[in-house]
């Protein structure tokens, strides 16, 4: 069986600035990879190349064994790529259509990517809305009438509606309070256990990465600093930058602007 995602030597240059520099990783079928790292290190750019919103300057991308390093030819190919891989963007406000309510956004995806009839779509919509903890009323609201975390959950419901084989989550749970975040993380774990979906989770929150991911990749200035098994990298980082990240996580007794008190 081919890997869910396989990326080799992926590179992106903007003008004279190399945003992504020869990045390679693999996510096995049903696997879950976390990408952490410095702000501006190229995480979102990697995600945008995976969905085809940004064209790689070099390197290869394959999803479910099929090459994606060049733009899709034709609408059938585009549709298939979208069904295979969905993304929840970092800025839900700008990625949701401001004129479209949550339920019509989800319904649009259901119409495009499933064979459900009207009643089937309505039932699935109600399920998704409930699973991400929104009310029917919130589902009928426009994005601007929702809070930040509510918008983020609309984006998650919409991505799940396509039942993709790979889901890219770019800071997709960071605007949620910890209780709703827990609910969404449990939901994502359940879906993975039930369907074998693969995740690529971009997050600044190392505890969230630990909870959802098997492997992790640390990115800095476009380059891979360290990668491997999640527990190994977080518990026994070999690179200085990973250690600095680990030490900057607020824990009880931590004070800003200086390294954390050494954990016992």
């Amino acid at each position: 069986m081919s890997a869910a995602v396989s990326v080799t030597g992926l590179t992106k240059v903007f003008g004279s600035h190399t945003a992504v520099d020869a990045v390679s990783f693999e996510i096995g079928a049903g696997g879950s990879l976390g990408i952490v790292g410095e702000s501006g290190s190229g995480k979102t750019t990697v995600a945008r190349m995976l969905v085809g919103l940004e064209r790689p300057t070099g390197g290869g991308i394959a999803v479910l064994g099929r090459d994606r390093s060049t733009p899709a030819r034709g609408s059938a190919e585009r549709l298939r790529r979208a069904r295979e891989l969905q993304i929840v963007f970092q800025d839900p406000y700008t990625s949701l259509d401001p004129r479209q309510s949550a339920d019509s956004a989800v319904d649009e995806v259901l119409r495009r990517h499933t064979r459900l009839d009207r009643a089937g779509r309505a039932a699935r919509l109600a399920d998704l809305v409930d699973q991400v903890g929104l009310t029917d009323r919130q589902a009928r609201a426009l994005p601007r009438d929702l809070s930040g975390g509510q918008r983020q959950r609309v984006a998650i419901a919409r991505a799940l509606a396509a039942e993709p084989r790979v889901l890219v989550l770019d800071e997709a749970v960071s605007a949620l309070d910890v209780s709703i975040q827990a609910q969404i993380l449990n939901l994502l774990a359940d879906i993975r256990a039930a369907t074998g979906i693969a995740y690529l989770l971009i997050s600044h929150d190392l505890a969230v990465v630990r909870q959802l991911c098997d492997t992790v990749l640390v990115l800095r200035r476009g380059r891979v600093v360290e990668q491997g098994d999640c527990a190994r990298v977080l518990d026994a980082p070999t690179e200085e930058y990973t250690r600095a990240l680990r030490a900057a996580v607020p824990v009880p007794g931590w004070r800003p602007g200086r390294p954390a008190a050494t954990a016992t």
Partner: protein
Amino acid sequence: MTVPLLELSGLTVEVPAEEGPRPLLDGIDLSLDAGEALGLVGESGSGKSMTVRAVTRLLPRGAEAGGSIRFQGTDVAAMDAGALRRYRDQGVGMIFQDPRAHINPTRRIGSFLTEALTRNRGVARREAEARAVAVLAEVGIDDPGRRLRQYPHELSGGMLQRVMIASVLLAEPRLILADEPTTALDVTIQSEVVGILDRLRRERGMGMVFITHDLDLALAVCGRVAVMYAGRIVEVRAAEELHRRAAHPYTLGLLGSRPSIDARAERLDAVPGRPVSAYEAGTGCAFADRCAQVRPVCRERRPELEPFRGGLVRCHRVAELAPAAEEVPA
């Protein structure tokens, strides 16, 4: 007695809806002194952003605020256009939750950062740019001179968030309203940025309302923390006592649902049930339907925010439940 920097009493916000006005905030009381940082945490949709938007009078169209908001003793609702402009330029600075939605995409970063200085404060353009470069460097942005010439879409999420923070630092307000200012930042930069905010608070007596979902971050940055649920404050407590003395069942639920960086949990303990909005709260306690400790009284009468063990708690049963609450591990 000195006047607080910011005082909210009985703050309400309602928006029009088909079935009549719908409450989003339902009686917020808070007071903040100069040099103090207050953390605002709580459920997604509970009204944290709405509270700080009300403070700057930037509410959604059609929304009505009630109760009172006083800034250094002055009624914010009564400010005329000139006073409101001065208040927004120099009194309060807002770091928005969603920088990409609040920074004009068609203008360069440099003009966004320097406009307030050149237009309102008579600072020469070169001088304003020099200050902008210095502040961008302070918040950890490489090559700040180049960034001034870029457009928002050319910056990453965390960079844009720091541009927003820089714009507020340039204005040097008396009060900073920071709405999840570090969610898009990696933890090392987060540490530097909150370090800067913390220094301004200590050295210049700036006040700060700090909205975050990271309880440990709130405890590190703030002296006091207020927990919101469904448009109301349900608990207020000194930061260093929150882990040990939290008493409201919702606060306890929040403290228990965080994943750990040290180990993966089989399942996370989310508070069961669906979030409720202020308008769905009914006559009793808004948390009743999700609370393991619920009794008939909870559905009948709305609890008040009352002193309990050095903090304030809105729960009918807190006194009976307290011994259990005391045992919550730190």
